[in-house]
């Protein structure tokens, strides 16, 4: 009974404890350390809209869909 109460109580208490700074992990990659991550070679967005187009091609020819970070309607299939 007590264990069950704790399980219900913990998700409410944990964020409060973390807000109080008891054990919150610190971000370990600082903004000035992110030059490489911001380089175009690391970003799909360097290709612009032309890069997203291929998902439209796959969407018309494969049954799988979703989890590719794009949305839209209709198709030029058949």
């Amino acid at each position: 009974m007590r264990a069950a109460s704790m399980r219900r109580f913990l998700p409410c208490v944990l964020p409060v404890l973390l807000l109080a700074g008891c054990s919150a992990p610190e971000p370990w990659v600082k903004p000035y350390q992110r030059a490489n991550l911001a380089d175009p070679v690391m970003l799909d967005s360097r290709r612009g809209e032309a890069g997203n187009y291929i998902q439209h091609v796959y969407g018309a020819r494969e049954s799988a869909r979703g989890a590719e970070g794009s949305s839209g309607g209709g198709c030029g299939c058949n």
Partner: protein
Amino acid sequence: MAVTDRRPATVALLWMLLLMATGAHGATLPEDKVDAFYHRYEGGGMTIDGPSVLVRKGAGNQVSFSGQYYVDSVSAASVDVLATASPYTEERTEYTLGADYLEGNSILSLSYTNSSENDYEANTLYLGISQEFFGNMTTLTIGYARGWDTVMEVGNDSFEEEADRQNYQLGISQVLTPNSVMGLDFEVVTDEGFLENPYRVNRYVDPSDPTNYLYQPERYPDTRTSVSAAVNGRYYLPWRASVKGSYRYFTDDWGIDAHTVELGYVHGLGPNWTLEGGIRYYSQDQADFYSDLYDYANSQTHLARDKEMSTFSGITFSAGVQYQWEQISVPGVDRLQLGLLVDYLDFDYDNFRDVTASGDYLPGQEPLYGFDAWVTRASVLFEY
């Protein structure tokens, strides 16, 4: 009971407070730009090409508007068309209007898309929120899209059916080290309404016909729910290059399971050139109700012989190049980029047969179908 009902909301609120308290101001709106490209798909008897133009313009520091115009000009003589109909041409036009609103480290996005063909109309509304937190090392994106489609049929003015679609998206991007980042994506899609294609048919054995089979209209379930989950990772290499890998699992209540694996390499060459190459493998199992050849007419409730519902696999090889000028002498232009992307796709079907193959084949003995295609995109992008 009432306390139990409020509890998830309370927990969510506390976690949100935690996320906002540990966040920092760092989210940025996309650059003002014009992004145009020409696309061409050629393979499997299909040629689809056309332009796309996107214009994005900020209004103040917190709002960015975008508009996109996109065209698919289709010339179709695929195996599905040739089996039972004549080649045709059609055009699909798509317009998207969008707005992004930046508040602190959150971006709220709203867009509306209209896609129009002579026999298909699709309207989609998208709402998304993206939030950076944990020292901007983590980005959480939640999206919802609602689509209203109208399905029509050329030559049958009395035919008009509806299909409604809903997408629920959740994405997390996490910086791991100064050189690596990973992402998780999760999406549920539900469809309801007329989900089949009014032109497509399936075949069944009929010994009374000279070909030993006849065709009947396809009949899909009127609901479909799918779940997909993806993980991806990217690593920066010391010679200004990167490698990436991703995997996606897909499953739906039509019995289709699919796996997608992708690997890519990007290479920076001096300040202006970027070269890239990649490979993608896709495989899926058939829908429960799919058959290349049914035993007799109306042998089951749902009938489909779409090759997209069969068991098959596909492999893609891709290559690309971009060239950019950062300090360009054109007034008002901050950056100009030219790009070329080329993909080669090859699909092989395990239980979809080519009824157009020349030769004398018994039904169900025809060679298995396969096709390849080239996808090319040439782009011009400038930021201003």
